[in-house]
């Protein structure tokens, strides 16, 4: 089963503060360990919202808003796709990652696959 693990960004991330060298090493180690355990299929971090945009649709009319957005802590800071055999397993990987990346929240969601649609 695939899970998307999304971490929320901190105010520092939103402000464009680059992770400390120590933290970068720790994140790199985590990514490597997750690759070595065969569960990490891929993942990326994203920049603060000042470099992004939002597309809002209300009753069919579309509005495009440029970043930054006010509620920085409610924004996704990055994601990883894990292939594991249970939600519990995904949670344990997410727990490790949350502590290393220094986020206040990580969401773990199952990826919809063809078999789920049938």
């Amino acid at each position: 089963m695939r899970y998307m693990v999304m971490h929320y960004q901190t105010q520092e991330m939103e402000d464009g503060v680059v992770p400390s060298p120590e933290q970068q090493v720790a994140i790199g180690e985590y990514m490597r360990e997750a690759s070595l355990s065969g569960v990490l299929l891929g993942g990326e971090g994203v920049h603060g919202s000042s470099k992004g945009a939002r597309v809002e649709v209300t009753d069919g009319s579309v509005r495009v808003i440029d970043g930054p957005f006010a509620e920085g802590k409610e924004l996704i800071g990055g994601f990883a796709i894990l292939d594991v055999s249970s939600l519990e397993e995904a949670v344990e990987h997410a727990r490790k990652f949350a502590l290393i990346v220094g986020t206040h929240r990580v969401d773990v969601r199952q990826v919809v696959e063809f078999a789920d649609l049938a």
Partner: protein
Amino acid sequence: MSTAAVDATIATLWRVESPRLIARLGRLVGDLDTAEELAQDTFTAAIEKWRADGIPDNPAAWLTTTSRYLAIDRIRRRDTGRDKLRTVAATTAEASGMDVDRIVDGDLADDLLGLIFMSCHPLLAPDARSALVLKLVCGLTTPEVARAFLTPESTVAQRIVRAKRTLAAANIRFELPGMDQRAERLDAVREVIYLVFNEGYAASTGDAWVRTDLCHEALRLGRMLAALTPRDPESLGLLALMEIQTSRLAARMGADGSAVLLLDQDRSRWDPWLIRRGLDLIDRIDALRGTAGPYALQAAIAACHARAATAGETDWLRIAALYDGLVQVVPSPVVELNRAVAVGRAFGAEAGLEIVAPLRSLPALASYHLLPAVAGDLECTAGLHEQARDDFLRAASLAGNAQDRATMHKRAAECAVHSA
């Protein structure tokens, strides 16, 4: 948190953390049995402590620290004289002035690779290797391994005990083989992984769900191996092959549970994620510019099918060329028969039949129903309907399962209509 919830989390942590712990402890104490025992002791300590105090914020770190403490304690106790660690500890931890941190913080990739090499040691029988690798490297429990192989739990338990005894008796150390042995041992490891995969993929008996599980365990092992040996084209090839084959799992089973052949599959049901991963791996193999081995070639063939949006768009010329390469590196009658199919599609049925003709006299294929089945298919295309009918009937008489028999009878009947 309830005791049940704590126990459930610990069971999951075993799966996630035990391979890393056992790999690291193995380097520290030298032998597999002690490493596994120490890992189990670590989790026993966790159960006692966490049932009372709850799960710590960082259980992985807790387990690492505790296992390290237990290992050092064990090594020190060797002085009591009764500990079998006396010799191994002397040559590992003690020799380096008890620099435990240096050993424990050594390269995790090497430790994991050492664990995989040990589990797949050539001294062990193939079924022992696959049981051991699933247990130690994938972190499955003995009942889970038993369920995956549809084998009684007691049989699997015995198999694992015997395997560990064999390794201990031969004094097989927990370490990476030398460079000269590395390639040979990697071949053995890949063989075990593909064996596990096929056990799930080509299963003819049992609960389908369980077998899909086995495919995913093999896939996970393959991903580990590819991460551990990122510049080895055959490891990447094995992984590419499994990613692409797994992408078809949902499409290869009909509503009634029967197998749907590759060219008849609904390609919209192929998993695009896995195909993408497989094709990326093929690109990485090409970039390495080595001589393609059997897994890389099979992966390249699988990739040709994966790239075709419809069966009609299949690049048979390329597949035939890849099969030419494959019979060079792994000459076998079955591969030759597959080559006949590809050549028949690429260059016409007659060309395919030329390859089939000498195979008919081989004892190895005398009772292989796919030989007359392939011959019949090529003859049918070539307009040789009477010969085709005879071959299909022969294939029906040799087929092992009712589904195949019925298909062959049906095709024989179609030929009879043509030749009438």
